[in-house]
């Protein structure tokens, strides 16, 4: 089955070019040129990845991102022309999983998209414990005290990566490689922002984390089960 990519971009030339490249790489694509139509399109088309331009008419890309995230865990990759820390962190905090800075090379974009959709392969039955939460890997379920916790696929991946090697400390660079699929050093802000988001969901008290622990000056590790 082909993965479906929803392209949200107001620039018709870029949208068309993206379509050409993505189709060439074996993706199904759909294009909306307006922020307000993005959310209905996500509902109707149930895409595997959303490619979202941050500068959009109608509805700001950040708001679109928040709106999508409020009802769907679909992976979102931002396209941005701005490289300032504030813009990128704002985009990540509003729910984007990853970002690509314009102008990008097609290969790079494809690598980012593939990293987001690759986990659809069948996985062996696996049950993991981290802190006081239990993870059912093939079912994509995280449970605490019998209550399921809703995580986005990326947050789920992050948690599983930590839980699989409970004694190991992961540096941000290693996490970037394992979870985001970057092969060389990239922006560690990605990790910081997503760890915060993950903690806000799985921790009883995000100020005193018990599931995802910070190892000062090194990185993160799983809390003892």
């Amino acid at each position, binding site marked *: 089955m082909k993965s479906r990519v929803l392209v949200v971009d107001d*620039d018709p030339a*870029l949208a068309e070019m993206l379509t050409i490249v993505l189709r060439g790489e074996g993706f199904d694509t759909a294009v909306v040129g307006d922020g307000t139509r993005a959310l209905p399109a996500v509902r109707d088309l149930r895409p595997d990845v959303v490619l979202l331009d941050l500068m959009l008419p109608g509805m700001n890309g950040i708001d679109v991102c928040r709106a999508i995230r409020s009802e769907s865990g679909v992976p979102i990759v931002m396209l941005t022309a701005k490289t*300032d820390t504030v813009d990128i962190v704002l985009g990540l905090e509003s729910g984007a999983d990853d970002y690509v800075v314009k102008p990008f090379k097609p290969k790079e974009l494809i690598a980012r998209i593939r990293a987001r959709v690759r986990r659809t392969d069948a996985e062996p039955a696996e049950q993991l414990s981290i802190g006081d939460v239990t993870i059912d890997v093939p079912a994509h379920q995280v449970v605490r005290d019998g209550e399921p916790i809703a995580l986005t696929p990326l947050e789920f991946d992050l948690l599983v990566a930590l839980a699989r090697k409970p004694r190991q400390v992961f540096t941000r660079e290693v996490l970037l490689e394992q979870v985001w699929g970057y092969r060389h050093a990239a922006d560690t802000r990605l990790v910081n922002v997503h760890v915060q988001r993950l903690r806000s969901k799985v921790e009883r008290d995000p100020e005193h984390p018990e599931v995802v622990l910070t190892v000062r000056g090194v990185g993160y590790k799983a809390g003892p089960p």
Partner: protein
Amino acid sequence: MTRPDDRLWTRLERMPITRRMKRTVAQIRAVAVEVGVLVDAIWRRSLQVRVVVSTLALSAAVVLVLGLVLQTQIAGRILQGKEVDALGQAEAGAAVLERELAGVDPDGEGAQGELNKALDRLTNASLSDDAGSPSAGEFRAVLTTGPREPGRGVDGSGADEVSAGTVADVPADLRGHVAGGSLARRYVTISAQGVEIPTLIIGQPVRTAGRDLEFYLLFPLDAEQRTLSLVQSTLIVGGLVLLLLLAGIASLVTRQVVRPVRQAAEIAERFADGHLDERMPVHGNDEVARLAESYNEMAGSIQAQIRQLEEFGALQRRFTSDVSHELRTPLTTVRMAADVLHASKDQLLPALRRSSELLVTELDRFEALLADLLEISRLDAGVADLTADRVDMHGVVNRAVEAVRGFAEESGTPLRLQLPVGVYAEVDPRRVERILRNLVANAVDHGEGRPVDITLAGDEHAVAVVVRDHGVGLRPGEAALVFNRFWRAEESRARRSGGSGLGLSISIEDARLHGGWLQAWGEPGRGSAFRLTLPRAVGEPLTTSPLPLVPDDRAASEGSAPEPAPASSTSDAAAGSVPTPVHGLAAVRAAAAMQTQDDR
């Protein structure tokens, strides 16, 4: 000939006391110099002190002169009056005596008794005298016959001389005058029982039956002296009080003038510090108010101008940033299209294939230029920030060199490194690496295949890296231009490696952000050198660099005769301050690193 003296002196010098004394003298001199400097500073700094001190000095001189004149005048008047009275008294006394002694022979027996009697009478007469007769106050009278033989010394023969009263108090020369038959007066100081009493002596000859007698009246002037010293102390006290009052008045008056001036200075200083809203308060209508008004007007117009310039600047920076951002979307499309073409280049005709290759490489350059443009607009806008860490410069330089090594090997340029380990400094490694990548790539680019030397050194306060090539070098004056944006040396207009023309401009801004220097030197035929000097700690001011900018190898240059004074051109860029965050993709950065060198 002065050898013994010298030896003595040397021995003296060796003595501890002499040495201690010398030290003490030196210390005193140092303290005196310090005090002098301090006084000088106060004198220069405070208008008020200057006015008060000058007023004090001038009025002290005036009061002194005035006091002296007054005192002289008063003393003169008092003595004049006394003298007139005394002369009258003497004349009256002489008349009385002449009457009394008309029949007395001074050389006869019993003359002494006669004289005493006459004097007693004279004294009593003046004491009992009533108003009308001249009175010169208290006096003592002296009557003497003088020496028997005229011309003989006065002192010698008390036996021959018959006197009444203390004749010893009368000075000899006065007696000479009187003996000569004339009226004489003299001021003398007579000491009686250890008390010095200024005295006026009037001497007059008195005719008798025999030869003339000398008649003297001694008027003690102690009353007058008391009056005078009273006057004197009154004058001194009055003068001092007057001086103090004058100083106070001067201080008050200058304060009135100086205070608004000081206020104005403070306000102007604050204004200069960037508080553009500072204004002087305007009170009343006087000169100070006028000063305040015109100052405020000036401040207002400066503020307006600055605002306008700031707006222009912000607008321009905004424009640069917006253009860079707006260009990105179409550039992305073009880039993707080019890559799609390039990916299927094997199916294209040779001309089209080459075209697609050119398209892709030029797009890389375009992207690098855009990234540089954005970076410099960020530096200009002051939004770049320094993330400084204490790092070993060895690693930083090494990474920069490794990033360029491939490029250097392509052009067959050997890189000669002198990188000691353990030269720590507080720097932003990303920025410093970028600067050095730029310098090394530049050197390789212009080194014409000759070796490029990269030297690192550090001292207590600073670290320095010098990148030296032995290529075409810089012509006089060009060292100042290399940091200009988009500047290229004439012959390299047709550039080979294709820098954006912004590399060195960004580098110098990065150096400024650290509070460091980036300087260039070059000479035609001898190559060029770029020196980066950074303070060891952020915020420490730079004064010197651990490495020389101008290389010390002029004799070895190309075998040509050593020039007497090479017309080397250097350019200094002192510290300024501007702030930059990391730009996205590592791949683009690496490509940009290779290309952001400036051509010269």
